[in-house]
């Protein structure tokens, strides 16, 4: 059973995707049921694995030979340990809720079955990343996640913005993934294995095994997370990816895909924490270790995204930048050397951020695809259930006790306090920002009076959509009682009583806790002062430069479009220019000029291609010979 269950969890979504795309495409209901059934079954099986005596206690693997040729031997296996079980639970629980919600949200969609096939394919890929026991398999599923998210983000491909967003997400991720691939190759060539357990063992035996490339390898692998978890400077794809259907945003951008980067970092944490060492060429970086750089990038992303979120008007974009900011906190926790708190925050964040997205989806549906928060307002009375669940998730995000988000964030802040006061201070500022932009959202969307046409009568979605929201709200409330860190650390469960765990932050780090609460209070007070009953954003009037910079996302996107897109085109122009002008023009004309004099000048202007090519071929051979004989 211990080997059968993980295989079933992984393969059920694949089977669903295959069945839907091959057979049941015309039957909309059946397709959706297959897809939902697969992930819900996966959820129960994961729970059973937790409950099985001893299953969660010890890491084990099940594998079949996959690639064997010469010195290359890679198995296709599943690694089941506390980390992967926790992540699988998050994916199947949150993912399952989103699958069910999608059934309602996508009801009128023409390609309803295709949508569910894509969802199942995505779930399969994501679970593949979770259970992967080695780098090659992880990279495989990592890319499959990329491809299936491309399909989902670009699902409404008739809209150019959606198509562009899908492509952008895909391309930006590829950039990070190439670094990841190079890192894998580096680790493989140095340590002779790609298997996580084996790598950890070899590195423990000989901590200097990575040699001069230790830090470079760690940073290259971090590149993969940089793309998937949308950290600066590869963060630009995530806000655009909000063009996908809202449940997709909830699934990809809250619970699973973006969390994959953090999960991967936690999985290979032993590599990142290897003795820092730089190759001779990068000697000037000596003294900086990989974790430090990761910490800085995470912190920077958290602050930058928090700032940008302050001035976004699209409800989904506010949530997108909030996701970026929270991912920054997780990456920062990894950088602090604390994968436990990072995973804890990942788990709680998956729940409440998915809930926020589902609430946003309900509002968007109710208002007929209106996403501008300044045209909402006063929804508290029209949609009470959405309001309360949204509020719970907001409170969790702002770290209000006793919700799940409070414990995970306090844990990260406490570690920051112990290690680096400056990091703590900046992270604290991030907490103020979090509270400010979230309460701004709540006050503008739900508070005040309605700012929409009179005839529109928003109402709650049907039960199929509200149940998943209630389920996630329940998870968010209860998550505070879960001892995720202790579970990951492998300690026996249930040693600490529930009460002592709930009061934990007060006992361990009372100052940090109080500071955190003060940050939330400050943010709330600022939001209350600025946005209670506001009809439009007061900030642009007061600080116009700052506000417009934030509205334009600190100009980062424009800068990228200009420089990266531009440089690609410039290079291409250069290459064809070399072809057209230097070879065809200058060189050939020069030779001709000397061989055949003036009378042919006119004809030379029409110098065509064959002769150009022949001439270049001749030049190439001449250069080759010169190199040999010189």
């Amino acid at each position, binding site marked *: 059973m211990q080997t059968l269950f993980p295989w079933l969890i992984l393969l059920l979504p694949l089977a669903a995707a295959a069945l839907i795309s091959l057979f049941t495409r015309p039957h909309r209901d059946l397709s959706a049921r297959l897809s939902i059934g697969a992930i819900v079954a996966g959820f129960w099986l994961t729970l059973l694995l937790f409950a099985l005596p001893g299953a969660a206690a010890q890491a084990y693997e099940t594998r079949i030979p996959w690639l064997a040729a010469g010195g290359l031997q890679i198995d296709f296996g599943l690694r089941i340990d506390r980390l992967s079980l926790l992540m699988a639970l998050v994916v199947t629980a949150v993912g399952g809720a989103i699958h069910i919600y999608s059934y309602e949200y996508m009801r009128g969609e023409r390609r309803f079955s295709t949508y569910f096939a894509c969802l199942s394919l995505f779930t399969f890929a994501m679970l593949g990343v979770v259970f992967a026991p080695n780098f090659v398999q992880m990279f495989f599923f990592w*890319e499959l996640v990329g491809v299936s998210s491309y399909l989902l983000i670009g699902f409404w491909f008739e809209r150019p913005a959606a*198509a562009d967003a899908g492509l952008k997400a895909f391309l930006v991720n590829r950039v990070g993934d190439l670094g990841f691939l190079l890192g894998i190759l580096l680790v493989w060539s140095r340590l002779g294995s790609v298997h996580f357990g084996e790598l950890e063992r070899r590195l423990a035996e000989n901590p200097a095994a990575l040699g001069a490339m230790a830090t470079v390898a760690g940073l290259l692998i971090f590149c993969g997370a940089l793309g998937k978890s949308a950290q600066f400077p590869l963060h630009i794809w995530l806000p655009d990816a909000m063009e996908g259907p809202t449940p997709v945003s909830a699934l990809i951008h809250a619970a699973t895909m973006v969390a994959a980067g953090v999960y991967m970092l936690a999985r290979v944490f032993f590599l990142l924490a290897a003795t820092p060492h730089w190759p001779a060429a990068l000697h000037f970086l000596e003294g900086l270790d990989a974790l430090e750089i990761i910490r800085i990038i995470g912190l920077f992303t958290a602050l930058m995204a928090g700032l940008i979120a302050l001035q976004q008007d699209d409800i989904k974009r506010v949530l997108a930048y909030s996701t970026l900011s929270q991912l920054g906190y997780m990456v920062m926790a990894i950088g602090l050397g604390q994968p436990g708190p990072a995973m804890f925050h990942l788990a709680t964040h998956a729940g409440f951020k998915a809930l926020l997205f589902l609430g946003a989806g309900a509002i968007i549906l109710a208002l007929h695809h209106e996403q501008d928060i300044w045209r909402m307002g006063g929804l508290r009375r029209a949609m009470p259930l959405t309001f309360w669940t949204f509020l719970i998730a907001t409170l969790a995000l702002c770290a209000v006790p006793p919700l799940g988000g409070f414990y995970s964030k306090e844990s990260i802040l406490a570690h920051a306090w112990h290690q680096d006061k400056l990091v703590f201070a900046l992270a604290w500022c991030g907490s103020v920002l979090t509270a400010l932009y979230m309460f701004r959202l709540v006050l503008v969307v739900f508070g005040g009076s309605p700012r929409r046409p009179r005839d529109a009568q928003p109402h709650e979605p049907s039960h199929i959509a509200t149940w998943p929201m209630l389920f996630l709200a329940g998870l968010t409330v209860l998550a505070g009682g879960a001892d995720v860190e202790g579970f990951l650390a492998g300690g026996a469960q249930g040693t600490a009583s529930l009460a002592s765990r709930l009061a934990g932050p007060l006992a361990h780090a009372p100052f940090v806790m109080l500071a955190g609460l003060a940050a939330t209070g400050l943010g709330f007070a600022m939001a209350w002062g600025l946005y209670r009953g506001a009809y439009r954003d007061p900030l642009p009037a007061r600080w116009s430069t700052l506000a417009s910079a934030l509205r334009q996302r600190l100009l980062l996107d424009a800068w990228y479009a200009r420089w990266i897109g531009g440089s690609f085109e410039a290079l291409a122009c250069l290459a064809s220019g070399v072809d057209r002008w230097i070879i065809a023009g200058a060189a050939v004309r020069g030779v001709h000029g000397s061989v055949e004099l003036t009378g042919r000048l006119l004809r030379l202007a029409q110098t065509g291609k064959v002769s150009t090519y022949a001439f270049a*071929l001749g030049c190439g051979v001449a250069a080759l010979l010169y190199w040999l004989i010189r």
Partner: protein
Amino acid sequence: MNAILTMPEMAVTALALGLLVLDLWTPADRKGDLGIAAIGGLALILAGSFLFGAGAPQYAFGGMYVLDGMALFFKRLMLGVGVVALAAALEYSKRFAAGTAEYCALILLAVSGMMWAASANHWALLFVSVELMTVTFYVLVSFERTRMPSLEAGVKYLILGALASAFLVYGVALVFGGTGTLGFAGDSGPGLGTGSVLVRVGLALVLAGLGFKIGMVPCQFWAPDVYQGAPAPTAALLAAGSKAAGFALLLRVLLEAAPDWALEMRPVLMLIAGASILYGNLCAIPQRNLKRLLGYSSIAHAGYMLLGIVVLERAGAAAILFYLAGYACAVLAAFLVAALAFDPGEPEEIPALAGLHRRSPYLAAALALSMISLAGIPPLVGFFGKFLLLKGVVLAAFDSRSFGWLAGVALAGIVTSFYYYFGVVRAIYWSAPAAERPPIAVSRVAGAALGACLVGIVAAGVFPSPLLEAARLAAGALRIP
């Protein structure tokens, strides 16, 4: 004389000649059957080639001809390529006024030339097999003699091909003068005496001649023009078959016959590889024509495969063989779609692919898969090939920093290539067609050939071990000192 060893080549040649003879008695409306017969015959020969085991190398014609694991690998690859190219030709030749059987026969002759090249162990056989391919391709490229682009491509291929042949044969003459022998790696053991200037210069000229076949810098200029102008099946055969034959010869010459010289030339080879990758990928970005884009990308792929040569190791050779097989599947699929998705006489513009997924979901999916595989995204076969090639270079980077640069250039090239490959995918699925066009009917033969390519792309990507093992065994037959 083990002439029996040459059975596969002889059979393909006989098939071609038989086809030409039978054509005389076949009424015009039954010409298609001849094509089917050719496909069947070639498939039979492919099946028959599995009767040969890849044991110890066997020689024929006094050591001119060698049948070892690598030769056998290449022969199977080329027979497979030939079957798919014939299927494409059968479909494509509907737009010719006449000459289906001739076109098929010429493809068979080109395939036999490639097969001879795979077994070449002597400069004479190398030259004759290369010329058999080249001269056949002159006709194949310019076969649509009523279309000016086809003729123009033919002339370009003719002039540049003949020039490259002249370099090749002059180089061989110099090598012969320096070593006093025409065989390049007899039973007595590999290696030419490569000390003298004559041999070194001669080998450089040979490199230029073979470089033309694989389309590497600085012999790459013909590729985009010829790919664009030639009939799609010809271009498919050029990309998948001719390039493979070039690499077979290059592996034999560089790794078996003249390893010392290859070591000396390593910096130049690295430069060529990097330049090919950059040139092909950068020039491909602004392209609008699908076949021209594939032409530029073929230059880049030649560069990637040269990465397997510059490491001068068996593992690199194995990676090249794997990559060639995967590349053949993907590029054949792409050209098959190019042959089917456009109307006769219509230029193969990428924007015209808009709405292809409505006109034929099968063709759209096939082209998308092929592009994704060419871009090297897992789990398709292109990923593993690039992975293996890069692994060799990264390993070597520990000894020499210049390999690090090469790896960086290769990665930059791969990133750049996403830009245009996904431009094609985007055009298929995500752009609005200018006008509604009728659905495309895909014939059974073409559909099956396309299916075979797709199975290759996906299966060898998800379960690479059989192909990898075959490539490793084949590379094991190389006599690297």
